């Protein structure tokens, strides 16, 4: 029996994974979620900003990782619009992040009745990650002379009083790759830009050294970070749904590891 268990067909495991993903989506449930310190720090930082401040969100993820990062963008933007904080959207790492950013910005703006050009703007993508970060530190208009839909930056009301990072209260980097390091190296170190990050679960462990040194003012980690932020703004959304689904998948994997090890030890004892 244990030998059979050790050599179980992987398609059976695939069916279990599919079931634990599909069932919570069909029958949503709610689990209590504790807010971690890095998420709380980001929330507190944004919450303390006065109305009329501007934050910049760098959308540095592609379609493969948007389910984890998009709920973070939505939650943070909802918080900003509620507080009267303006949002500038850019992309420095992935060109295909721009349509995703456009989509989530429009959705949140419609919900919060935010006006394009006055409350938020999407500048789009420019190639040359480090050079774009450096260039905006000197003058944003030198890098982005127009927004995503080719409107001149001089015609956008909320950009009239924004020259460079001196007018940006926070840069939130929503990342699925190494762009956070680029923002810290070139944005924070050279221009003292305050930086926070929202990253996918697989790279969150890499961010902790920057959090401890204060180079990151806050951190959202994967679905959990999005769910925690949604809890703080009292607006459960896709992050909360995602973390509840992830709960079951994690339990399944832990269960599989335990069963696999029991079978392994019993088999080894028998062989001895």
């Amino acid at each position, binding site marked *: 029996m244990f030998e059979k268990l050790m050599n179980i067909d992987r398609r059976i495991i695939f069916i279990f994974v599919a079931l634990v993903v599909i069932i919570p989506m069909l029958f949503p449930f709610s689990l*209590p979620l*504790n807010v971690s*310190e890095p998420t709380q720090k980001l929330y507190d930082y944004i919450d303390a900003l006065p109305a009329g401040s501007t934050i910049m969100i760098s959308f540095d993820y592609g379609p493969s990782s948007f389910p984890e990062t998009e709920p973070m963008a939505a939650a943070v933007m909802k918080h900003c619009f509620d507080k009267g904080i303006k949002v500038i959207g850019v992309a420095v790492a992935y060109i295909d992040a721009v349509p995703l950013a456009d989509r989530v910005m429009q959705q949140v703006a419609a919900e919060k009745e935010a006006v394009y050009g006055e409350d938020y703007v999407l500048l789009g993508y420019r190639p040359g990650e480090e050079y774009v970060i450096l260039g905006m530190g000197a003058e944003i208009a030198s890098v982005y002379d127009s927004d995503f839909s080719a409107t001149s930056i001089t015609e956008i009301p909320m950009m009239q009083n924004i020259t460079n990072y001196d007018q940006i209260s926070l840069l939130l980097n929503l990342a699925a790759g190494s762009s956070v390091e680029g923002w810290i190296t070139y944005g924070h170190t050279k221009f003292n830009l305050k930086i926070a990050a929202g990253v996918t679960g697989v790279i969150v462990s890499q961010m902790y050294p920057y959090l401890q040194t204060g180079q990151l003012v806050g951190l959202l980690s994967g679905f959990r970070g999005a769910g925690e932020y949604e809890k703080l703004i009292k607006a459960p959304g896709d992050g909360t749904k995602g973390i509840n689904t992830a709960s079951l998948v994690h339990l399944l994997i832990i269960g599989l590891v335990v069963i696999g090890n029991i079978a392994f030890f019993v088999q080894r004892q028998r062989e001895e």
Partner: protein
Amino acid sequence: MKQKVPLVLCFLFGIVMILTEFSPHAASQATYKEIANWGRVISPFVFVLAVVTLIQTHWNRIQRRTEHWQYSFVVFAGMLAMVAAGVPSGPQHPAFAWLFNNVQVPMDATMFSLLAFFIASAAYRAFRARTFEATLLLVTAVIVMLGNVPVGDLLWPDAASNARQWILDNPNLSARRGIILGVSLGAISQSIRIILGIERSYLGGGD
């Protein structure tokens, strides 16, 4: 000549960028800014190179009839469709947006999602407590996984997320900082080798 010019340029720009990085003088900062602007001008050509390489690779596959060469036509069809929909009217055109939202996004997300299936299968087969180190890794992974999801706090109130946070804040942070320092020192030494022309593999054709 084909090797000497890039080597001289690399040396010159490497030294200038190092000097300007450490000098706050106005002339130095103006030079830094100017070179950074040149960098922004050069960056878009990476896309040209990428498109040319993609076309060359798949054209060669079709010509040589290598395994699954038929799929290279799908690459060309997809590329042409996206260019035809996006270039004339911009990325906000409904046709481009439709293709992006209904073809590219689901396909990319599906490819990444498959990872969950393979990780579950691999964890079942390979995650065995065979040695002390493997057991340590296994126990740590289970704690972090449990602490990462709300069900962990349901089963083990507060302790699961606190234990996960402690692991991330202490052993993980220390190890990660060591890796960052090692990688940075390696990057510095490799950069010096490239600037001085000792390391030339970036020119192609080995040393």
